[in-house]
C-alpha cells in the first residue's frame, strides 16, 4: 500500500483509497488531486516558492456541515492532517499544510441570508467579505469586518480580525458574532450562541472558536449582527515628521475626539513615492488620512473637522476635510499602493511587519521603525523601509523592500530576521499582533509575553477538542 507519510507518523491509508473515500463523501467533482490544484491551496503569501513536501495530498470542498463532519471523522480515524482553507489571503500562512494530508476548502459553503427582522446575517464560512459587504450594503448595513475583499468570512472570524477598523468603535468578531455552527475534529456538530441580539453574559463556547485560528473546529455557519451603514467623510493631514502623526493620533484618543472608522498613516518616504507615482502635488511629509463617520453626512463632516482642527493645532503643514472625490481617490491611492512602493524604486518586493504599541508610545514606536534598517548586521540592513499603518487602530507597519536576485534560501533567512525584529519591537512596545492570524510564527512572542503556563493551557484546550491533532497540524507547534 502506498502509505502517506506525515511528519507525525504514517497515516494508515493509501492515496488512492483516500481519494476514493473522500469522493464517496462529497462526490467526485469536489475532490482534487491535480498538481496545480494542490499548489494553489498551499502557496501562501510567503515570498518564496512552495515546496513539494508542503503540498496537500488532496484538496476537498465539502458543501455543508454534514460533509465536513464525515471528513473530520474519517481524518481522525485515519490520523490524516486536515488544513482548513478559506480564501488563502491570510498574510501569514495558517493555510499552508505543514503535514500534507487533506486541505479542506470552505469555498463552497458560501451562502448568505440577511434577516432584517432579527437584525442579523447568517453566512457560510466560504463567502468572501467583499461579497457580504456589497450585499448588505445594498440594504444599508455595514460589515464590521473590513479585511481584504477577497478574504473569507470564516477566516476573518477564525482569526478574529477586522482589518483596518479601530477596535474601539465596532469591536471585533468576538463581540459581533451572535452564534456559530462548528464541526469538531471528532465529527460532532455543535451550535453556539443564539438568535438574540443580547449575547450571553457568561460562558459562550463560541468565543473559544473565534480567534483560535481554526485549530479547534471548522466553522460552518456564522450568525452576526447587522450594523447600520454610517455616513463617512475623509480628512487628511500632512506633517513634517512621521513621529508627529503618532503623537496626534494618540491625542485623538486622549482628547476624546469622535474616533474615525479608519485612521491611516503613510510615512514620509512612502508618501513621496506614492505622490510621484500618481503625479500628486501634496505637501512633503507624512500623511494621516481618516474616515470620519456619523449618522448623517453633516455629523460625519463635523467629526472630520474636529480631527482636522486637532491636526492643525498640532503642527500639520496642511490639513483639510476632503470634499472632492478625485482628491479622496488620490489620497487613498497613495495608501493603497503599498505593495508598489518598493517596485517603483527598483526593488523586487517587500514584506511588512506589524507593531502594536501601547497608546502613549505610538510616536516613539514610529521613530523606532523609521530607523529599523540602521546599525544592523542581518538582512534587514539590506532593505529599504517604508512606514505606514492603521494608526487609528493602533497598528503600525513597516514595509521592508528587498532587492531582486535574492534566492529562496536568502528569502527564508530574511523572513526569520523580520520575525525576530517584530518580536523585539512588540515586546518593547507592548503589542501582540492585531491584524492577521499569527500563531505559527509568533509562538516565540506568545511564550515570552504570556509564559509557558499559558501556552500549555492552549495546548490542553487543543487536545481536548482535537485529541488526534488533525486540524491545522503544526500551527500550534509553531511550524512555518
Amino acid at each position, binding site marked *: 500500500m502506498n502509505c502517506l507519510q506525515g511528519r507525525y507518523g504514517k497515516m494508515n491509508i493509501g492515496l488512492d483509497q483516500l481519494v476514493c473515500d473522500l469522493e464517496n463523501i462529497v462526490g467526485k467533482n469536489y475532490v482534487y488531486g491535480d498538481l496545480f490544484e494542490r499548489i*494553489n491551496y498551499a502557496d501562501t503569501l510567503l515570498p518564496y516558492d512552495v515546496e513539494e513536501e508542503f503540498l496537500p495530498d488532496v484538496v476537498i470542498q465539502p458543501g455543508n456541515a454534514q460533509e465536513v463532519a464525515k471528513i473530520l471523522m474519517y481524518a481522525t480515524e485515519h490520523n490524516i492532517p486536515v488544513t482548513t482553507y478559506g480564501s488563502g489571503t491570510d498574510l501569514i500562512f495558517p493555510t499552508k499544510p505543514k503535514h500534507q494530508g487533506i486541505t479542506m476548502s470552505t469555498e463552497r459553503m458560501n451562502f448568505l441570508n440577511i434577516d432584517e427582522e432579527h437584525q442579523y446575517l447568517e453566512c457560510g464560512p466560504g463567502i468572501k467579505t467583499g461579497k457580504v459587504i456589497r450585499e448588505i450594503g445594498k440594504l444599508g448595513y455595514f460589515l464590521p469586518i473590513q479585511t481584504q475583499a477577497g478574504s473569507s468570512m470564516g477566516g476573518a472570524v477564525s482569526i478574529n480580525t477586522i482589518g483596518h477598523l479601530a477596535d474601539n468603535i465596532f469591536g471585533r468578531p468576538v463581540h459581533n458574532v451572535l452564534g456559530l455552527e462548528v464541526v469538531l475534529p471528532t465529527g460532532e456538530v455543535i451550535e453556539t450562541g443564539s438568535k438574540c441580539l443580547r449575547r450571553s453574559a457568561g460562558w459562550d463556547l463560541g468565543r473559544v472558536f473565534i480567534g483560535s485560528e481554526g485549530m479547534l473546529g471548522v466553522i460552518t455557519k456564522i450568525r452576526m449582527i447587522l450594523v447600520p451603514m454610517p455616513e463617512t467623510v475623509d480628512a487628511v493631514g500632512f506633517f513634517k515628521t512621521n513621529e508627529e502623526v503618532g503623537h496626534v493620533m494618540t491625542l485623538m484618543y486622549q482628547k476624546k475626539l469622535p474616533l474615525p472608522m479608519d485612521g491611516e498613516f503613510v510615512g514620509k518616504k512612502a508618501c513621496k513615492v506614492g505622490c510621484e507615482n500618481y503625479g500628486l502635488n501634496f505637501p512633503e511629509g507624512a500623511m494621516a488620512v481618516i474616515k470620519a463617520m456619523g449618522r448623517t453626512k453633516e455629523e460625519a463632516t463635523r467629526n472630520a473637522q474636529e480631527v482636522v482642527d486637532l491636526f492643525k493645532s498640532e503642527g500639520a503643514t496642511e490639513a483639510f476635510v476632503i470634499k472632492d472625490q478625485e482628491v479622496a481617490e488620490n489620497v487613498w491611492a497613495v495608501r493603497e499602493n503599498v505593495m508598489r512602493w518598493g517596485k517603483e524604486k527598483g526593488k523586487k518586493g517587500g514584506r511588512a511587519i506589524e507593531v502594536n504599541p501601547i497608546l502613549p508610545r505610538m510616536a516613539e514606536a514610529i521613530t523606532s521603525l523609521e530607523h529599523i534598517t540602521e546599525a544592523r548586521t542581518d538582512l534587514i540592513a539590506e532593505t529599504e523601509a517604508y512606514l505606514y499603518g492603521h494608526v487609528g487602530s493602533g497598528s503600525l507597519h513597516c514595509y521592508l523592500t528587498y532587492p531582486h536576485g535574492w534566492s529562496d534560501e536568502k528569502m527564508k533567512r530574511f523572513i526569520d530576521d523580520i520575525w525576530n525584529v517584530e518580536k523585539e519591537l512588540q515586546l518593547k512596545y507592548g503589542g501582540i499582533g492585531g491584524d492577521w492570524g499569527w500563531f505559527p510564527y509568533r509562538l516565540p512572542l506568545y511564550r515570552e509575553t504570556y509564559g509557558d503556563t499559558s501556552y500549555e493551557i492552549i495546548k490542553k484546550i487543543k487536545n481536548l477538542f482535537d485529541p488526534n491533532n488533525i486540524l491545522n497540524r503544526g500551527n500550534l507547534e509553531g511550524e512555518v
Partner: protein
Amino acid sequence: MNEEALTENIENQLIETLNACKKCHLCNLFCPLVDTRVTQGSFGINRAIYYGFKWSEFSESLRDLVYSCTTCGKCEVMCTKVSMALPIRELVEKAREYLLIEKMKGPMPGQTAVLKNLYVRGNPWGNPSHERTKWATGLNIPFVSKDNKTDVLYFVGCTSSYDPLGQKIAKYLSKILKNANINFGILENECCDGHEARRMGENALGEYLAETNTNMFREAGISYIITGDPHSYYTFIKEYPTDSNGLKVQHYTQFLNDILDQGKLEFSTKVNKKVTYHDPCYLGRHSGVFEEPRRLIERIPGITFKEIENNKKLSDCCGMGGGRMWMEPPEKLTSSQKIAERRVQQALDTGAEILLTACPFCNITLSDAVKSLGKTDSIEVMDITALVSMAI
C-alpha cells in the same frame, strides 16, 4: 538569438515576471472564472504557469488552466490599482504560445480545427470563402477594390459574416449607413482579422492573416475602416503591422456618433425602452471605448438607460473571449454559460427590457444565457445597431 535561447528566454521571462506576484489573490476577486475554487481564477492560472514552467510540468491540466482564461483583463485592473501591476493577460498569451509551439500541448482540442480553418478558409468555421458576403445579397453593397473606391470600408469580421445572429448586426449597420448616405463598401475577399488566432497562441497565423488583410487594404487604397466587432477593432489598432497605422479605424459606435454630430444621421422615431449596456472587454477595457456606446444609446429618443452593476473598466466578461468561443472548458473549470448567466442576472437586476452590447461574441453568448436562464420573457439581448435602426 538562436531558437533554443529564445525558448529559454520566454520561460525565464514568464518565471521572472510571475515571481514578482505578491500572491495577494486580489486578481481572483475580479476574475469572471472564479466560481468556488481559487484555482479557477487569475491567481490559480498565474501560479500554474509559474510552477508549471519552473518545475517543467507541461501537463494537460496546465494547458486547460492557461487556455481557460477569457483574457478579459479585469484582473489587471486590480493588480495595477493595489498590487504589482503584472501584465497578466500578456503572460497568459505568452504561455499559450509556448505551450502550442514549443511543447505541442496547445491549443485546446476544439481549437485545433479552428486554427486550421483560419489558415485554409480564412474563417473559424471552415465555411466556404465565397459565402462570406452572402449576408449582403440583395442589399446592394459595393465591393471595395482599387477600381471601386469608397469613403469607408466596413470590415465585417467572421462572426457577422457567417453567424446568423452576427449577420443581423451586419445588416442593421448597413441599413444605418445607407440611411445616412455614407459611401461605404465591403471587401469581397475579406479574411479573418487574426485576433482569435493570436488569443489561442498562434501568433504566426495571426500575423499571416493580418498581412493578408493589410495587403488587401493597401491594394484597394483603403484609408478609413469601420468595424462592428471589437476584436477586429482591437487587433487593427493594437496588433496590425505599423505600416498599416496610416489607416483610420473606428468601431461603429464611434463612427455613428460622428455622423450624428455632423447631421448625416438623424433619429426620427422614439424607442420607449428601458435598456442597460454590457461593455465588451475588447472594446472597453482593452481599447478604452467606454463613452461612445453610452453616448450613442442616450441619443436615441425615448430610451431610459440604466448602468449595469459592473460597468466600464470593471465590466464583467461575457465568457467567450480569449478563444473560449472555440472550446469547452473541462468539467471542473467554469463554463462560459455560467459566466454569461451571471452577467445576464446583473442585467435583470437593473430592470432593463433590453441588454445592449456592441460585439457579436457578447451578443451570441448573452442571448444563449437569457435562454438557458428561461428569461426570454423578461429581457432581450441586442446589439446597439438594432436599437439605432429602430430609431431611424
